[in-house]
């Protein structure tokens, strides 16, 4: 026993001595090197010419306080409507009459050679559009008959038919769309935006996520609205449009608001002592978050409560209070936009029209999804416009990749229901709102809808454009992490899609 303790103490002493010796030995040399480095080093050159880096520091007690954009923004907030599973562009926006002519033919080898598909094997057949298309609105934009309500707003939309991605599975593709990288660990769009701009309403989260039609998480999970390496205060808060808006926000039944206040005061006091002891600004942020949660108890419930809307409005959206639905979420989104929430993200699942089960078939599942989303989306656009909000809101609608012009034959077998496999080469996404040209299409796919023929738009180009509309040079909205000034657009150069800017 004595021996062991003695040895243990010796060990400790040895380790400590080593540390001291190391420090004294090379540390001084190292310190000298550090000094020289900082004294002699030029300030790092910044992208965007000689501009100094943007300063995003805030009082840690108000991490979501508003910061002005770099230059005059065209939009102040974003509503992102993500159609999870990926809607078939060939059935909705990308009209391919040539493909229709080749319906049922074997897929040419050139489409298959050297390519990997999620589920297609062997030689599938080509699948023409399942629904009739026509030109709509004054702009004459092509649209199928599946979206009759959205059609009314077609002249507001900028339809990008040449989006491209390099991911053909849901999770990495969704991560790429929402965080700029196909692997987890990166900050999401909403986190970047709230980090850069803060939020106008300090009583609500700056970044709210609403999910419909399928559980509470996406294929890629919560990282889709996570803050990654950004401080966690910028993560998205997943809210519900039925029941408690935010889980675990409300006090337990036996605890009143006053009692909650007393608990918070006590917690505050302890946290302040911790802060006095360690001086970690994250502690101040934590105090601020508790306070915000307390304020949110009142305001969030109010914001999410669609029962307060007139019946005409409810009818326009097709919203039914008490249920969880995309329509309810759209109405909540408009309410949140009015209340100064910076980034509102809606997820609606079930667009993955492989044709395997019946509810994923193009002629059943897709029809259902369109019915669920068409009216509310159109109502949201009209409502934002009527309230003057559309001119400084950016609305985005899209999936994470496209769908193949081939009829999916899972395992090489012909399938009972009609479906398309995942297709990263090209997909359609539309934008509406401030700073965007109205009633145009950008980009084209080839006659078979297989590859992009003109004006490809990478995901990072879309992100760069969104950040530009929000008033940022995408290169200057960055955060140092792991030795790199991390950006939403990643390390490859991105292009702002100038052709769609008003």
């Amino acid at each position, binding site marked *: 026993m004595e021996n062991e303790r003695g040895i243990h103490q010796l060990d400790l002493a040895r380790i400590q001595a080593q540390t001291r010796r190391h420090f004294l030995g090379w540390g001084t040399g190292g310190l000298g090197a550090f000094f020289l480095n900082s004294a002699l080093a030029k300030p790092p050159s910044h992208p965007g010419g000689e501009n100094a880096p943007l300063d995003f520091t805030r009082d840690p007690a108000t991490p979501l306080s508003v910061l*002005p954009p770099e230059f*005059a923004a065209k939009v102040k907030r974003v509503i992102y409507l993500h159609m999870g599973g990926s809607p078939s562009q060939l059935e909705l926006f990308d009209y391919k009459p040539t493909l229709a002519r080749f319906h049922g033919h074997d897929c040419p080898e050139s489409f298959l050679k050297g390519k990997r598909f999620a589920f297609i094997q062997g030689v599938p057949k080509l699948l023409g559009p399942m629904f009739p298309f026509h030109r709509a609105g004054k702009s004459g934009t092509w649209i199928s008959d599946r979206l009759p309500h959205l059609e009314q707003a077609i002249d507001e939309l900028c339809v990008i038919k040449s989006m491209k991605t390099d991911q053909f599975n849901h999770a990495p593709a969704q991560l790429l769309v929402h965080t700029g990288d196909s692997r987890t660990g990166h900050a999401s769009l909403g986190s970047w935006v709230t980090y850069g701009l803060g939020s*106008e309403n300090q009583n609500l989260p700056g970044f709210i996520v609403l999910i419909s039609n399928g559980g509470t998480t996406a294929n890629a999970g919560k990282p889709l609205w996570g803050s990654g390496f950004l401080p966690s205060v910028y993560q998205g808060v997943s809210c519900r449009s039925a029941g408690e808006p935010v889980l675990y926000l409300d006090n337990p039944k036996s605890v009143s608001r006053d009692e909650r206040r007393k608990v918070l005061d006590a917690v505050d006091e302890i946290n302040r002592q911790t802060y006095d002891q360690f001086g970690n600004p994250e502690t101040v942020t934590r105090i601020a978050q508790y306070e915000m949660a307390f304020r949110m108890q009142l305001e969030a419930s109010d914001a999410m409560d669609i029962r307060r809307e007139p019946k005409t409005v409810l009818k326009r959206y097709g919203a039914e209070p008490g249920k969880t639905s995309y329509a309810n979420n759209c109405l909540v989104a408009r309410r949140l936009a009015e209340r100064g929430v910076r980034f509102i993200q809606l997820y609606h699942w079930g667009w993955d029209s492989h044709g395997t089960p019946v509810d994923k078939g193009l002629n059943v599942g897709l029809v259902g999804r369109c019915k669920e989303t068409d009216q509310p989306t159109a109502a949201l656009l*009209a409502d934002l416009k009527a*309230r*003057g909000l559309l*001119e400084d809101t950016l609305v985005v609608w899209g999936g994470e990749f496209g769908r193949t012009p081939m009829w999916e034959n899972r395992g090489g077998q012909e399938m009972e229901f009609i479906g398309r496999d995942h297709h990263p080469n090209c997909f359609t996404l539309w934008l509406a709102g401030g700073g965007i040209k109205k009633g145009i299409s950008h980009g084209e796919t080839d006659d078979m809808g297989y590859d992009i023929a003109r004006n490809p738009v990478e995901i990072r180009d879309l992100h760069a454009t969104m950040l530009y509309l929000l008033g940022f*040079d995408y290169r200057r909205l960055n955060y140092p992490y792991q030795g790199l000034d991390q950006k939403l657009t990643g390390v490859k150069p991105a292009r702002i899609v100038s052709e769609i800017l008003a």
Partner: protein
Amino acid sequence: MSSSGISGRLSAGAYFCSVALLTLAGFALAMFVRPAFGHSMLQWMGLESVPQAEARSFYATRVSSLFETHCTSCHGEKRQKAGLRLDSYAALLRGSKHGAVIRPGDARNSELFIRINLPASDSRAMPPSGKTPLTPDDVTIIRLWIAQGASGVRRTIPGAPQPVPEVKIPEDAPALTEKLRAPLAAQVRRIQMEHPGILSYQSRNSAWLEVNASLQGAAFGDAQLQALAPLRARIVQVDISGTSVTDASAPFLAGMPALEVLRLGGSRITSAALAALERSNSLRSLTIGDIETSEDTLAPLRKKHIVIHGGADVR
């Protein structure tokens, strides 16, 4: 020392004359075998006119930038692969060591067009794989330009695709911004401290101000709005939706010389006050929410090209 008489030997003079002649002959041969070199020599000696392109010509505005972006890293000042330079109109017409790359009037037989029109899989395709490819529009521009004579003068080529607009990201101008903000900076700071969240600059590089009182509700009224009077000349946007601002503030709002966007749905402003807004020369967007009003009131505003949101749509 010159012993021109001794057999087998030349005089020094004769020798160096021959050397000089041989050197010139060598140059002449090089100029003949490599026409691009030949032309550049002749032009350098002033024996040939150097073709110039006008600054506003189609070539200068649409074509040369394509070469600069996609070609001159290998065919320009630093490198001249195949002896070809594409960094000037004259060089372009001189061609490569194999001859002319442009046949004015005949794109299909111009080596340059042939190369840029090859499929990417062809090893001779230009730009080579790994370099940013030309878009189909770019190739069309070059084709049309060559076909119409590869002119350095012509300004427009019919059928050419429209140029892609460039996005200019404004540069920081901290000193200028500081200067523009200076006169009212103290007042802005004071108001921001007394009423946080209402007043903000339009951007980090702007001295324009935006007012958003929509989250204040009834607590924000005429008094609070008119307290912004010292700043009225710099306000570009006002959102008083849902506040208790009344018609009394209408002249104040109409009198803001730079106000562009005004939202007053849900406030206590009525139709009567809307007419006052006709006075504004800067207003371009007005949101009236569910304020009861008539087309008669709104018509004059629409005539001034003010976009009006709300009305029947909101009810």
